[in-house]
């Protein structure tokens, strides 16, 4: 999958079909868009509280579960104080 080229070793945001948002360093991927993320953390969004980051470590996510992979601008990302961000969690995929 040539489309994931250029994301390796970059900090990425991965959105899963169940609505989870995981940030991590893309260590590898394959044709089926299975991905390996290192130093990954789940970002848990809620309306009543700021964003909570839960460390997850080394993760292998199946391609079936992938919705979106975005390259994170680290300067932009670090400028945001996650504790002040309130938002609904991302919706799960509905077919």
């Amino acid at each position, binding site marked *: 999958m040539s489309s994931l080229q250029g994301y390796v070793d970059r900090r990425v945001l991965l959105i*899963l079909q169940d609505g989870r948002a995981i940030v991590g360093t893309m260590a590898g991927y394959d044709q089926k868009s299975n991905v390996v993320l290192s130093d990954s953390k789940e970002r848990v969004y809620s309306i009543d509280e700021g964003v909570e980051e839960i460390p997850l*470590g080394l*993760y292998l*996510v199946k391609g079936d579960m992938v919705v979106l992979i975005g390259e994170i601008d680290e300067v932009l990302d670090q400028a945001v104080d996650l504790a002040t961000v309130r938002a609904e969690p991302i919706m799960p995929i509905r077919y």
Partner: protein
Amino acid sequence: MLPLSLLNAAQNKPMLVELKNGETFNGHLVNCDNFMNITLREVYQTTADGERFWKLKECYIRGSTIKYLRVPDTLLDAVKDEQNRARDIGRGTRGAHNVGGRGGASSQHPNFTTLRALLSTYRTRTTTTRARGTWRAYAWW
């Protein structure tokens, strides 16, 4: 680095597997294939709500039902080192036809011996487990 290389390197390592239905399995990886079908031993199975759990001696999980696997952090460096070593060996062989003392048949087919060893453990396991059909079919393949 390919996801499957990581999974292959995770043999005998502890891992957490979450299925698409939210159930989780904690255990040690016995074996895996290119579909990400896996077998685990000494497993703790937990329901999606986390309310109930079971201990299983062994289990087989079909790859297509898996959401993600969590593996030990140390594995990443292990795989990278292994790949570098394999690359260096590859260069060495191409450079000179003489492979040297360590480059015999066993190092050219590193998977063959492991595979055989694993298959023999299956055969002993099949007689002792309840999931007999699964194990037997698997070993056969």
